[in-house]
Structures are given as C-alpha cells and as structure tokens.
C-alpha cells in the first residue's frame, strides 16, 4: 500500500522555486533513496514533505491529504525527519534530546522511557553519554542521536537527510544496518537522501534521481544501475 504520495510537489524559498512538480511515492515497508548532485533540491524535498517550508501540490500520507498541515501535525501523522546536519539540541542532555523527539507522543513517560532505553541499546555510545550535553558529542555520535531522536516519535515513515555526512565508513555501514533492520523487522518505511550512491543502492528498494528540482529517472536499484548512461552521469560507478 502506498504510504506517501506527492503529486506536482512544488516548493522553494521566497521568490525562488526549487522543486518543479515532483511525483514521489513511498510504499509501506519500502526504503526509497533520492540521489542527486549538490543543490539538486533533495533537502528541499524533505522540508517540503515535513511542512517546514511553504509548498504547493498534493502530499498524501496514508490516503489523507496533509499538504496544508503544520509540521507538528505531520509528525503526529507519523512522519519523522532527521534533518541535514543533525540539528541536535546542544544545550540539552542526550536523554532530553530523545524526550523532545517524543514530544508529540501522549502515551506516558513509562513507554517513552522504555523506547529511550531501546535506542540506547541500539546505540551504546549514546547510553554512555546519556546525561552529557548533546553539544559535547562527536559528529558521529550526534548523527546517531539525531536518528534515535527521530525514531522516538514512533514514525511510520522516516525522512533521513544524508545521515552518513561526516561519519567514518564503518559507522556509516552500521547506521545503515540499523535502518535496514528496522525496516525488515518493524516495517519502518524510509525515504533516504544519500551522496554515497553505491552504498545507498544496495539497500534501496527504489531510487529517484533528482536534477535541478525535477525527477529525471526512477526505478529499482537494479534497473538504474543497469542503464549505462544513468550510471555514468549520476551514479559514478
């Protein structure tokens, strides 16, 4: 079943239009990757979906039109975002960062605490530093925190904007393994922006290629990498 569907999604900053009518789909339990050069509009796409910038066109989530919803309503509907460049709250402790991630949840401190413990198990580095200021974490640890924090809202769809930025290759792999596992075991759908095309293609069910705010190609990872011209122009392998 389709979880997220955008039709003619248009967005930009002030007078500048960056996205020129995107038709995107993410099905339930799918990992979808968006690839594109710097400035292609990948981050803008994420922001348009999460409602943090003005947008036009339709955005449907679980069959409901959410294109007019405010960001908090969208989180409540089940879309969480890991913003590009982490965006952790430096003055809050690691634990409090996670609690803010659960801001929209109404199911009580006990369950929220249990979820926090669960992510501490997945990311033991965070557990060791739970009462430390988030600002004092290393870049990679902050990235883990940003992902754990987004998961604290128990999303159905996770928007992940370059989670590998600034991470050691090994940590990146671990991170992607975690995402894949959540996807397999719990049916979490993921919309992932990634520069490392090679790595991303391995886990992707489907791929969109973005160029200056338009989708220029889409299909399964196998289809796209089978196309020589696309491979040379966009994927670089």
């Amino acid at each position, binding site marked *: 079943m389709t979880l997220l569907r955008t039709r003619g999604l248009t967005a930009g900053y002030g007078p500048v239009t960056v996205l020129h009518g995107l038709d995107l789909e993410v099905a339930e339990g799918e990992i979808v990757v968006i690839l594109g050069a710097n400035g292609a509009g990948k981050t803008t796409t994420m922001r348009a979906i999460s409602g943090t910038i003005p947008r036009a066109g339709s955005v449907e989530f679980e069959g409901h039109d959410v294109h007019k919803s405010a*960001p908090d309503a969208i989180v409540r509907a089940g879309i969480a975002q890991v913003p590009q460049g982490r965006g952790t709250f430096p003055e809050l402790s690691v634990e409090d960062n996670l609690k803010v991630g659960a801001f929209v949840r109404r199911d009580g401190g006990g369950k929220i605490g249990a979820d926090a413990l669960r992510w501490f198990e997945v990311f033991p580095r965070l557990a060791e530093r739970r009462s430390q200021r988030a600002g004092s974490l290393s870049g990679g640890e902050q990235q883990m925190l940003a992902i754990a924090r987004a998961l604290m809202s128990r999303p159905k769809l996770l928007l992940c904007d370059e989670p590998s930025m600034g991470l050691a290759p090994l940590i990146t792999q671990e991170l992607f393994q975690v995402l894949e*596992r959540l996807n397999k075991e719990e049916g979490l759908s993921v919309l992932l922006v990634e520069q490392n095309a090679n790595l991303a293609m391995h886990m992707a069910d489907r791929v969109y290629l973005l160029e200056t705010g338009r989708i220029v190609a889409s299909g399964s990872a196998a289809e796209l990498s089978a196309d020589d011209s696309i491979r040379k122009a966009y994927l670089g392998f």
Partner: protein
Amino acid sequence: MKSLFTIKSGGAASWAMRLAVAAVLAALMLWVPTRGSDSLIEVCTTAFTLMAAALSLNLLLGYAGQISLGHSAFFGIGTYTTAVMVTRWGWSPFHTLPVAFVLAFVVGVLVSLPALRIKGVYLALVTLALGMVFPQFIKWKKLSWLTGGAKGINDTGFKFTKDNPTYEIFGWNPWGNLRGQNVKPFYFWVGAIIVLVVYLICRGVVKSRVGRSLVAIRDNSTAAAVMGVNLPVTKGIVFGLSAAMCALPGSLSAIRTGTVTADTQLLTVAGSITFLVIMVVGGAGSLWGPIIGAAVYQFIIERTGGWTEPDAIPALFRPFFGWSKTAPGGGLFAIALILLMFVAPLGLVGLWRQHSVRLCRVVPKPAGTTTISVMAAAPAAVDETHTA
C-alpha cells in the same frame, strides 16, 4: 581539580547541605520582618519586586531565548490595573492581582504575534518600542479619565483600618500590624509570596516537557519544529506567561507605594533594562540567577545610596566616588556586569558553578541505576548481536 569535599548526589550529605541552606534562608526570612529595621524590610521588599520581574524575564530570555526590552510595560500593566481598579471601582487591592495577571497575559500573547516572525535585534527593537510607548499611552490625554494622565493616581494602596484582622501567633505577629501602625512586614510577606509563586511557575515550566521544548526552540528552531513542537503556540504562551508574571510585582508596587505615575523608573524603558541587567548578572537560564542578581543589585544600590556626600563614602572608595553628584550604585552594578561578562558569561550562578567544584564536588548517581526497573519493562525487540 581537587575539591575539599566529595559528596554523592541524593546522599545524606547532599540532603544535609540542602537542609542547611533552607534553614539559613528560613531564619533570614523570619528575622528580617520581625527583628530587622524598617528600612531593611523596605529594601528586601523592593528586592522581591525586582526578583519577580527578573524571574519572569528569565523564562522568556534565559530559557526560550527571546529578548524583551518591553517588560517594564507588563510591570506597568500590573501597576495600573491595580491602581485603576482600586480607586475607580473600589476593588480590594489583592483581588486585582489575578486580573493584572490575565490582562498582561493577553497583551503578552498579542505582542508575541509579531515576535513569531522576528528574532534577535529586531525583536529587541519591537519590544523596546513597547517599553517606550507604554508611559506615553498612560499619559495620553484621552485616557486621563482612567489613568489620571501625567499626574498619576493616588490612594491605590491597601487600606489599613481598625477592622482588619490581626493574625497573631501567641502574641507574636510576624506580619506586622494590619490595623495601621506597622505594615511594612505585611508587604514583605506579600512580596515574598509573589516571588515564590513566580519561582514555582518558572520551575514548573522549565522542568516540564514544555521547558525542554523551549530550550530546543532556542537551540535549533527548525529541528524543534520537525520534532513536532508547535513554535507559534509555544512561543506565544511563554511570552504571555512571562508578561503575566511580570505584572504581579507591578501590582505590588502600586499596593505598596499608594501612588502611581507613568514616569516611575520601573515603568519606563529604564525598568526593562534594570530587569535585564539583574537577570544577566545573576545568571540567565538558571532559576536562582535572577533571585541572586536582584539581591546583589539592591544591596549595592542600598549601600551606595548616600555616596553623594564625600563624608559618607568609606575611605577606601572616597578617591573614586567623591566627585559623584548622584549615587553610584547603578554604575557600580554596570561595572560588575562588564567584569562578569569576561569571567563568567553565565552570571553569578555560572561563576559559582565554575568554582564551587574546588570546595565541594557533587558526584552524580552512576548512570543507569535509576532506570533498571524501566529496562525490565522494555520490549526486547532488539537482539544483542546487532547493536551498533
């Protein structure tokens, strides 16, 4: 860093320390109104007024990161609400406090609407305009039927009559005599209660999930928004709450002094600056900061109040202040502000946090000990082999 003592957080020593601090505070609070001189009681009551105002500003600026140079206007709304209701409509002064609170809340929310779109310097300018307009608005001719114009309003205070009850405890009367001879202790207690109420509200907000989201907004508003924090609503409510709390000490000053005019220092922009400086010197973003800041401020003002006469100045300071025609308290406090910004940008509380380690280190509980019970209840959905 080596420290003299090491104690465990939550242990017996830590509780003993808290008890000792509480005992000293309680003793002071009882000693001042019963044994202290009239002028000391007055000074403390003024300090309470400043504490409450600085605490309310701290919630907005220290925690939510929104500056306001217009809090003198909210203070003034309290003052004038009480003055008008007491003199024009015959309300009992203390019944006007909730009205002032609500009115300032509404005005605060309205002011927050433009504040939603702007930050930093621009927000400072918009709220500065509010602070500047307020006294002019009060003095506006068309409103003088209500506000008394430039002349102000008289007889705004509490009436002490023979019919007032006295609340003696075995012949001992810590509140002063409400039948009219010695009322200063009474105001002292009202001031103390207002500080307590404002402190508890601030503490409640700061330690709650709303408090976390305030810091989140301050740290990274976009990220806070994608966590589902509703920025306009949160900012609006906090602005309103901060304004509402600032009206309480304003009301108290009308009740206490019995006369109000729009040119009283605390009702002008100078008042806003005073609140701001007190908060910064004490320590922005900490609950005790504004309280300590206000106490220090009032102490300095009081000590140097007579320094316009060279003979009144202690010999050590005479060469520096002998020429001054006005009391140098404000200037001294300003110098303290500048020095603090170099050694402790987080104010006196920050200074204490930096250096108290030498005296006594509080070791936090080992991580995880408090949450074991929760761990047992956690769903075992994650298999151990896969932890990153």
